[in-house]
């Protein structure tokens, strides 16, 4: 509403003002719900971390110094972030070519492929994790297949290894990579590729000098989603990784629901937030810079 129009309808002005106020007030119920059920719990969590004992009676910094005084916890944080990084790399290497092929398909086949990509998304993470237990287990497809081929005589240990976990997470998180990639790539002008080919570039050169830079926003978005999801994938980490591979979500769960040391669990979960979000912020900053570089 411009100033001119409000001036023209001056008799309505008072009513309109009340109107505005009412409109803004519609957000009040949600604000209240979020303050009571989201903001207050998080503030309490931060406060809880500044207590020394599991009865939450003595305020102090002991939980922080205890958590960060233990070199084991640094390894856990590092392993958690590294798991996210490996999963991101695997989903890019496997998923990007699929997105490239998607662009070349006929609309009919595109529909089929999208169906294949979206369908696992509607499937519970628990089901996807379970599927990988069946695939990777001692009597699973891979071991049975390799033994039948005579490649191995003893079943390989694939569950409870980081390799098995990264393979599983690659499939489990794949839709999060593919959907942003495909939505950006399908907006690319097909003439660009033809122009690049007409000017004598090989398809590889077109890929790395034309398509990859232009699809950067989708790639960055996919990487962020996969990283955030795989570092906090509690079920997949515990079921496929087992007890030998320890990541931050498991530490949080153990400290809060097994040991009942809430201050320490609070410290662990705040460390998870800070480490994951700072990497995400850095990545999205780099992504924004690269796309600005492209436009400017």
């Amino acid at each position: 509403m411009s100033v001119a129009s409000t001036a023209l309808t001056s008799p309505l002005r008072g009513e309109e003002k009340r109107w505005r106020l009412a409109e803004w007030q519609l957000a009040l119920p949600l604000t209240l719900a979020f303050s009571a059920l989201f903001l207050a719990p998080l503030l309490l969590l931060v406060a809880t971390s500044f207590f020394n004992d599991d009865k939450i009676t003595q305020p102090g910094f002991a939980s922080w110094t205890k958590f960060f005084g233990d070199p084991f916890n640094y390894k856990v944080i590092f392993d958690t972030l590294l798991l996210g990084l490996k999963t991101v790399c695997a989903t890019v290497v496997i998923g990007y070519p699929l997105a490239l092929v998607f662009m070349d398909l006929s609309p009919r086949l595109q529909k089929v492929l999208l169906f294949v990509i979206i369908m696992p998304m509607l499937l519970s993470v628990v089901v996807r994790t379970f599927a990988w237990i069946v695939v990777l287990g001692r009597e699973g497809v891979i071991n049975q297949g390799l033994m039948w081929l005579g490649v191995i005589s003893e079943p390989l240990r694939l569950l409870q290894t980081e390799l098995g976990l990264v393979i599983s997470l690659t499939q489990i998180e794949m839709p999060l990579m593919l959907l942003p990639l495909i939505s950006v790539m399908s907006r690319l002008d097909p003439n660009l590729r033809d122009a690049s080919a007409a000017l004598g570039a090989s398809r590889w050169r077109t890929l790395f000098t034309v398509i990859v830079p232009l699809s950067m926003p989708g790639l960055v978005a996919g990487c962020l989603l996969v990283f955030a999801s795989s570092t906090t994938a509690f079920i997949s980490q515990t079921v496929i990784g087992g007890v030998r591979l320890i990541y931050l979500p498991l530490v949080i769960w153990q400290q809060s629901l097994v040991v009942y040391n809430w201050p320490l669990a609070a410290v662990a979960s705040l460390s998870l937030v800070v480490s994951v979000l700072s990497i995400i912020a850095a990545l999205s900053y780099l992504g924004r810079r690269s796309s600005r570089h492209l436009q400017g």
Partner: protein
Amino acid sequence: MGRRQSFLDLSYGLVIGGIAGLAVLIIVSPVVIALMTSFTEGRSLKFPPTGFSFRWYEQLFDPIQSRPIQRAAGNSLEVAAMSTLIGVVLATLAALGLARNRHKSARVADNFFMSPLVLPGITFGLAALVYFSTLGFRPSLNLMIAGHLIVTMPFILRTTTASLSQLDPALLDSSQSLGASWFYTLRRVTLPLIFPGIAAGAFLAFMASIDNVPVSLFLSNARTDTLPIRMWGMMESTLDVRVAAVSGVLIAAAFVLMLIMEWTVGLTRRMRD
């Protein structure tokens, strides 16, 4: 030059096509293999399955043997339905209130409401547990509905705000200048036009609630657990083959849901745009 070029293009086709094929295999095969295993006759998750039977499905639908699983499935549906319903009301109201507001505080509020999407779910789950225990609440379905409301509401707010921003303001102005009250305009113009956005968000929120682990993990006990938590427990302990049967049911449900959405809203078309 020409031969080099064609060799390069051939290698491109082989490498990219090969990896894409592998990607489809990796995406699809675990689901197919899990589904096949659920029809096994044996007591283990061996592949290929030994024999073909519906015994695990029969056990799953047996009301006495599988009571905890069925109760967990009921809890999942109840929590998802209630949190989505409350989420739709609160998010639609908030979207109506904030979508046209250009004030800085409106953007702050919007970011605040979206932040559960960024925050690791396990951190909010722990925070909710500490908070509700401090207030003296015991684990119950109501607490879980409250927790799920927070983590699923952003999906509804996002799609509803998006469809409101595409709404032509001239429509609202003409409705108003023709003498319609604010509420009448809302009921007859705004809501019907943004309904697809609300419905899409409600669907996403419902699915996110059904699938939620981190919040349910902290706010449930043995009587109020949801299906994913119960399945996790079954996988962690004895690896009951009934997990395969539950998976089979959920795979079939996802497949049917996908077909319904394709027919009604043209899901794959929307996702591509």
